[in-house]
């Protein structure tokens, strides 16, 4: 029996679709960890990016934080978090949050900076106070780029969550790591295929979501690609 057949059999074996080591559980773990990390990351990153972008301060920092973030090896950060916080979800969520923050800060900063100064002047002239101006004029115009940053982070976090298995965590990486440890290649291959499928569906899903959430009128207003944290991959 060829390896591919064995992998197919592994994937279609009903016993692999139930229980604590079942595929739905593992997918659930990975998605759960990712959503948690991206949500915490957004709560930290978006206000910082909005404030920096609105006042136009610390631009070098806001732009370069995603370059530095790219330089941080996610494997190293995960293992350090594991050494500090021990077993469990906590080190994984902390490491993934740390990865999620930089692209969101950069994109939010750029998004707010890119708002046309004339529009801001007009808002001022119409009597908007500063807070209302940010909330009701600048933010809606900044949504496309902010969403692009959230999407970049989320796709990266889902991918990197696979590494949680290396520090005794759950998620689909479990199949890859356990399969390698036991020389059970069908398990490893099945895990790799599931991880690839999850990463690709996350990307497509968020691209669709972005399309739905961004008003049609402002879809074309985009910052130059060079200033965005467009390509961000750490795993």
């Amino acid at each position, binding site marked *: 029996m060829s*390896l591919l057949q064995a992998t197919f059999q592994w994937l279609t074996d009903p016993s692999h679709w139930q229980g604590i080591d079942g595929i739905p559980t593992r997918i659930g773990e990975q998605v759960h960890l990712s959503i948690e990390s991206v949500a915490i990351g957004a709560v930290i990153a978006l206000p910082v990016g909005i404030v920096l972008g609105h006042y136009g301060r610390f631009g070098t920092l806001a732009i370069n934080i995603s*370059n*530095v973030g*790219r*330089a*941080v*090896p*996610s*494997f*190293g*950060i995960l*293992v*350090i978090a*594991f*050494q500090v916080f*021990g*077993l469990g979800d906590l080190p994984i969520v902390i490491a993934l949050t740390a990865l999620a923050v930089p692209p969101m800060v950069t994109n939010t900063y750029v998004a707010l900076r890119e708002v046309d100064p004339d529009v801001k002047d007009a808002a001022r002239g119409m009597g908007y106070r500063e807070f209302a101006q940010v909330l009701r004029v600048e933010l809606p115009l900044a949504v496309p780029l902010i969403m692009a940053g959230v999407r970049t982070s989320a*796709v990266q976090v889902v*991918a*990197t969550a*696979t*590494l949680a298995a*290396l*520090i005794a965590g759950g998620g689909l*990486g479990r199949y*890859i*790591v356990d*399969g*390698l440890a036991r020389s059970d*290649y069908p398990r*490893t*291959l099945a*895990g*790799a*295929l599931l*991880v*690839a499928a999850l*990463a*690709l569906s996350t*990307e497509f899903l968020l691209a669709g979501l972005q399309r739905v959430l961004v008003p049609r009128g402002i879809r074309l207003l985009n910052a130059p*690609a*060079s200033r965005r944290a467009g*390509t*961000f*991959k*750490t*795993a």
Partner: protein
Amino acid sequence: MPSRLFLDLVDPWINWAWLSTHIPYVWAAVEQHLTLTVIALAGGLAIALPLGIAARRWTNLHLRPAALAVFGGFYTIPSIALFALLIPYTGLGTLTAEIPLVGYNVLILVRNVLVGLDAVPPDVIDAANGMGYRPWARLLRIELPLALPAIFAGLRVATVSTIGIVTITAVIGLGGLGQLILRGLIESFHTPLVVATVLCIVLALVADLLIAGVQRLAVPWARPA
């Protein structure tokens, strides 16, 4: 946690005595790390440059959307999954490590080659045509040099990303500095873990600055005034 209690009491984040006697060991890891990175970058450039140029030259072949879709999908897949998928076919070794790394770099680089070529002003192309340049000569001698800033920008992103992802090749027995991180994990020994993580960041930032320096020399006309 209880099993690590003892080590927590005695293991500092950096044990300088261990480090001072293990410099050759750390250096060997750095060397492997750099080798894997350079191969991944060279491979990425070797594929992305001709691909980008061909996509630009023969637009009727629809190479651009095809390449961006194929490599974009590849880029989304985590490296550990690709290593695992390749092991049965290419074994545990450099080839298995490099195929994903090169593939990721192709996406970053081809995208920037195209952005750079797209940004060449139409007036410049008109002027080149007027001077009698044929399409190939115009592409290689006018458009490509003008695209260099974008290509360099892509190279910097690719370099920094690759240096980070190389650590994960530790799961297939390579890893460079990732090997030290893995050792730190398995032995709950902090020193190699911290040293490797810090060195990784330093390597990435130094490489980034180095390429920025080369770019200044290679593209003098794009220097900010």
